[in-house]
């Protein structure tokens, strides 16, 4: 008899097991279809909701496709000049040590123009959390080469592929900052499959929880797609990411507290 349950009988509030967190605003996301930025936003907000930290959180938005993050995340936010989010977050955290303070940054923002701010905030051991979305490209401005672009990868400014002889090598900034004494927890994740989403959420949880310990900077990289910049469909870009990005940027924890 129960096998003949109607849709209306199943779709009751008490049976709901998943819905978009209320900490995401109603605004439609400005991201391209299939872009990992949306999933990354949602996971961070889910954790903040579950930890009941909405009123106690201040986020810093970058320049890049996620420049409008303050329109999507229903928390207090400040937008920073390109690459300067860790410096802005440093100021905010020092003024409000009891708040949870994080930055959300792309690879162009964090590992190109903002390399100095990133390294020094990490080296100072600022008690902030950095969420770093690495798609190996400047997505917002039309897909130019970034420091994180893979060898041989074609972009608008490396149309024949990145030649490391003339264009240098991709920068593993996450491994670099993990070596600094000021970082406490450093992890690299992705959000393109259900299993990876679950793992990424656990890493985000830790990076938020550890800030309460005041032991230094917590850092989660999310290797993500830029299907527009890579000129692929979303499904193709996720496959390409698995085959090309993950061997160079392997997933997993890079620095865990003793």
């Amino acid at each position, binding site marked *: 008899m129960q096998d003949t349950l109607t*849709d209306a009988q199943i779709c009751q509030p008490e049976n709901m*097991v998943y819905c978009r*967190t209320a900490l995401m605003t109603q605004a439609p996301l400005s991201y*391209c279809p299939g872009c990992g930025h949306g999933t990354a936003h949602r996971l961070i907000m889910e954790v903040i909701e579950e930890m009941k930290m909405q009123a106690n959180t201040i986020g810093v938005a970058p320049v890049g496709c996620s420049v409008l993050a303050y329109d999507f995340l229903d928390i207090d936010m400040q937008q920073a000049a390109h690459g300067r989010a860790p410096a802005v977050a440093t100021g905010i955290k020092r003024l409000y040590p009891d708040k949870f303070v994080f930055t959300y940054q792309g690879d162009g923002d964090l590992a190109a123009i903002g390399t100095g701010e990133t390294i020094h905030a990490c080296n100072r051991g600022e008690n902030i959390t950095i969420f770093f979305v690495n798609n190996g490209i400047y997505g917002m401005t039309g897909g130019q080469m970034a420091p994180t672009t893979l060898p041989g990868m074609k972009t608008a400014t490396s149309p024949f592929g990145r030649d490391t002889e003339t264009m240098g090598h991709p920068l593993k900034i996450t491994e670099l900052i993990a070596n600094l004494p000021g970082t406490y927890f450093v992890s690299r994740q992705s959000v393109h499959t259900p299993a990876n989403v*679950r793992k990424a959420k656990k890493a985000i949880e830790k990076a938020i929880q550890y800030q309460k310990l005041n032991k230094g900077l917590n850092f989660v990289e999310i290797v993500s797609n830029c299907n527009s910049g890579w000129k692929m469909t979303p499904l193709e870009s996720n496959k390409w990411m698995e085959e090309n990005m993950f061997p160079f940027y392997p997933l997993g924890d890079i620095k865990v507290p003793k």
Partner: protein
Amino acid sequence: MATVKGRIVIDTERCKGCQLCAPACKEGTIAMSKNLNSKGYQFATSINDDCTGCINCALVCPDGAITVYRVKLN
């Protein structure tokens, strides 16, 4: 026989037709509609009753367009 029954509800206006949810579903419940939403995206739609409410599709949806329901059958 399945001991749980699930249903998904897709916010077709929020959906951007990226197709990431379809291969995330082991039950083959999701396909793209032939219809378009007001932004011109071919939105995702549920095509069978085999949903177990596992939430995998909702986890990978970048736009948070999927709500999942689940009931236990005794």
